[in-house]
């Protein structure tokens, strides 16, 4: 049987928070990076001679878009490993 203390509740809330942070945090970058990739595909189809330039621009944009996903990952890891109630 589980004993419920205040410290246990804080720890459990941190676990739930980690799941929520990474779960919702992954939605935005996933969609945004896919959108960038789609437009890059259309561009490459139209002008394949500029494929290198288009791919580079796509990757730079995706890296910036990725940053919020990495913030979520960092916060989730902090909640899992740093919160000691």
């Amino acid at each position, binding site marked *: *049987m589980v004993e419920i203390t205040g410290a246990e509740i804080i720890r459990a809330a941190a*676990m739930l928070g980690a799941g929520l942070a*990474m779960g919702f945090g*992954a939605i935005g970058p*996933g969609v945004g*990076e*896919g959108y960038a990739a789609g437009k890059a595909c*259309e561009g490459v*189809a139209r002008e394949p001679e500029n494929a290198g330039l288009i791919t580079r621009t796509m990757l730079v944009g995706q890296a910036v878009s990725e940053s919020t996903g990495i913030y979520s990952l960092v916060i989730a890891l902090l909640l899992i490993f740093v919160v000691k109630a």
Partner: protein
Amino acid sequence: MNMELYAYLGGALSIGLGAIGAGYGIGMAASEATKAITRQPNASGKITKVMLVGQAVTESPAIFALLIALFLVFKVYHVPEQITLANIAGLLAAGICMGFGAMGPGVGSGMANASACTGMGVQPENENAIMRTMLIGQAVSQSTSVYALVISMLLLFVI
């Protein structure tokens, strides 16, 4: 506190939510591929190939969600001796994390795949360049679902 309840709830949330994004993304790709084949019926084989390769990649966040759901459902057969409230919350959190985490990358990869099919309908002879760009873009787009998988695994097995 009942561990089975949260394990089953987490598993249901994981695959239930995780299937939404990939399903929608794969459907978008199929619709664009259909349009492209209507425009270029002679290139139907090439367009179908790009569509299927892209859809296979788009499917992977849903497979991660299925994996986490299976772990959660079979977790109830291995109940540890010492179980804390944090462990129980971790089960639910793992399901929520992977479920929502699979949604965005599924839709995003599907968008990339759909646009690649549109591009194939415009110029089917550029198949290699389009396929390469699509796969690079999808790989980057999927990185957040891998983060969600890592966090779910940590919530399930480490804490």
